């Protein structure tokens, strides 16, 4: 059953505070979090979180199309072996 709309998205309060603090500072600090259950909100776009997967903190750079998903979705807890993307080339400029 999906979450009732009237409740709004769930976010841990301390994560919101941390994100606000980093945004206000204007620095590229990474926000360490264990809150995999928190929903990604529009105000998180552009920030980088380090989401714990029970073993390591995986960096999650929040972009617009991740809004509405949970942080845990981007930090897998089980080992996933990828096959090499043969033709995958990286862009010349990696914008920060």
């Amino acid at each position: 059953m999906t979450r009732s709309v009237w409740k709004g998205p769930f976010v841990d309060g301390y994560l919101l505070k941390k994100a606000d603090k980093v945004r206000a500072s204007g620095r590229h600090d990474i926000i360490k979090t264990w809150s995999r259950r928190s929903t990604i909100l529009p105000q998180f776009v552009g920030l980088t979180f380090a989401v714990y997967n029970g073993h390591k903190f995986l960096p999650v750079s929040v972009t617009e199309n991740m809004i509405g998903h949970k942080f845990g979705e981007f930090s897998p807890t089980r080992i996933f072996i990828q096959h090499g993307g043969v033709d995958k080339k990286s862009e010349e400029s990696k914008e920060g």
Partner: protein
Amino acid sequence: MKPERLICVGQILGAHGVKGEVKLKSFTLNPRDILRYAPLCDEKAMREFALKIRGGVGAVFIATLTGVADRTMADKLKGVKLFAPAQRRPKPGKGRFYLDDLPGLAAVDEKGKAVGKVTGVFNFGAGDILAVENEAGREWLLPFKKPFAAKPDMEKSRIEVNIPEDYPFSQKAEKKVFKKKHKHKNGHAREGGHPRKTTEEI
């Protein structure tokens, strides 16, 4: 002689029909490009397959492999991954590079001081992640973007990284250190619980 580095370009999904054809999945960006890498081989480069594609949908093709004449032989190949030498890839354009080539690069800080070595590149849906490990077994997972990582210099085979002091890391060698510290007087490494009594003490 140094063995060639192989890259996985496809996988055999199973047999198709009774004439030894197979269903094949291509992992290349443009699925039909798998033909450019032929002949392909298996993981240990023991068998070589010339490839002929008959048809297919999307990235899955119906193909004929050399030396596979009937369904029984095709069935045995189910799940086999197909590899090609990395040298057969087209050369990336100027200022471009393959993510697959990054592991092994030296990671240096902005002053050029060695930090460690790139051990892998991952992507779990939230941007590319660069794994950097130093000699002491400390591993950092960095977002592959500025200001954490700069563009790699493939000619000098190094990449500039910027790891903040409070950046989270994982320590691979921690367990070994713990065992050494807590070595029992009898010489047994014990992980927990009460120390075992010797026969003389009893």
